[in-house]
């Protein structure tokens, strides 16, 4: 078979819907086309109507979406433990409301005595800090929101 016969597939799909069947196979000397829809696929099609609405509502209620998908989220470049200050008892690198410039150090992340400064990828104002001192973070976990 060199090309897909779209018309044939579409006709078979319509036949599925009309007949309520879940599977049709059509064969000629040259091709065999099998069109099927499984029960899970049907329920998946139906699910978003009911499932998406509450998720959107709760995000709206909290005034935010998932912080990880926020365009101003700066994420952990490694697994490790976050420090908000250069050493215990010292003032934090940054606080909510601070204006920061690109390249500025925001946190340290330690993994096994390797200390890695997390730097601002962009300048802006810090609107949220999502981690606390001494907290373990996973790779890619959002640390701070910059807007």
């Amino acid at each position, binding site marked *: 078979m060199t090309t897909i016969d779209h018309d044939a597939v579409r006709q078979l799909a319509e036949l599925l819907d009309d007949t309520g069947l879940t599977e049709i196979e059509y064969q000629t000397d040259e091709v065999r086309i099998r069109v099927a829809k499984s029960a899970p696929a049907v329920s998946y099609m139906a699910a978003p109507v009911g499932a998406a609405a509450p998720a959107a509502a709760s995000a709206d209620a909290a005034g935010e979406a998932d912080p990880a998908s926020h365009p101003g989220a700066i994420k952990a470049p490694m697994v490790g433990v976050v420090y908000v200050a250069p050493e215990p008892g010292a003032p934090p690198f940054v606080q909510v409301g601070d204006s920061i410039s690109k390249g500025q150090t925001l946190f340290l992340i330690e993994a096994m*005595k*390797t200390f890695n400064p997390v730097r601002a990828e962009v300048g802006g104002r810090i609107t949220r800090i999502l981690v606390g001192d001494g907290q373990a973070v996973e790779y890619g976990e959002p640390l701070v929101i910059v807007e």
Partner: protein
Amino acid sequence: MTALQGGTPASPLPQAEAALPPGWRLLCRDEVDGTNATLVRWAEGRGAPFDGAPAEGVVLVADQQTAGRGRQGRDWHSPPGNLYVSVLLDGAAGPARLAEVGFVAGVALAEAVAALMPAAAPALKWPNDLLLDGRKVAGLLLETALGTDGGPWLVLGLGVNLAWAPPRGPEMAFPPGRLADAGPAPGRDALLAALVPRLAVWLAVWRHQGFAPIRAAWLERAHGLGGPIEARLGTGKRHGVFADIDPDGALVLDTETGRERLLAADIHFPDRDP
């Protein structure tokens, strides 16, 4: 250039110089704030005593440090007589893997000490302290830096007690010791000459074969494996059995409530602690 910034040249270390791998260079200074802090500045294009871009294998030794540091900003007392050295390494492996270099360095240092002191049995305390006869004789600290061209660097710092050890502090899991406590000890020059080539070899192994052979060599010298430990984290303490280290070096702790992975902690050994 003031002494605090980059130090002034100090007496050379000829054995170490002769043992350098190709392309590496050794710089000796009388006094710096910290060898790590100095190399971080040099890597970031501030005050480097050499022309052009920094390169892997810059080895900086200071006779003494005025502001030597350990983990959590702790002071690392650094009077003359001990080895204070930092090495600039390519950080291209990325932050997620660079912590593995601490184990590379720990293995290299343990091997160097074992080669020079055949009667000693150096052990490694997670993640990379060196123990000799139940005393901590060396510590490591690694820091990443960003070159002016955006290239990542890793600064590996080692402090080894040769002639002098500090008094025991309240947070120390082991009493500090000196190599000299365990027998005839090498000087700075001989130790560095033994260390640097081993470091280069283990780095090459790590880059070509990954962390697995490093992990295996580390586990052979691991202190306290299979025994009870107390892990002191910034957020509290965890108790359990030191079961293993993960394929990324994390300490695997078996607790009463399950298995945990630790990435940053001070490890204490209740059996030994007062």
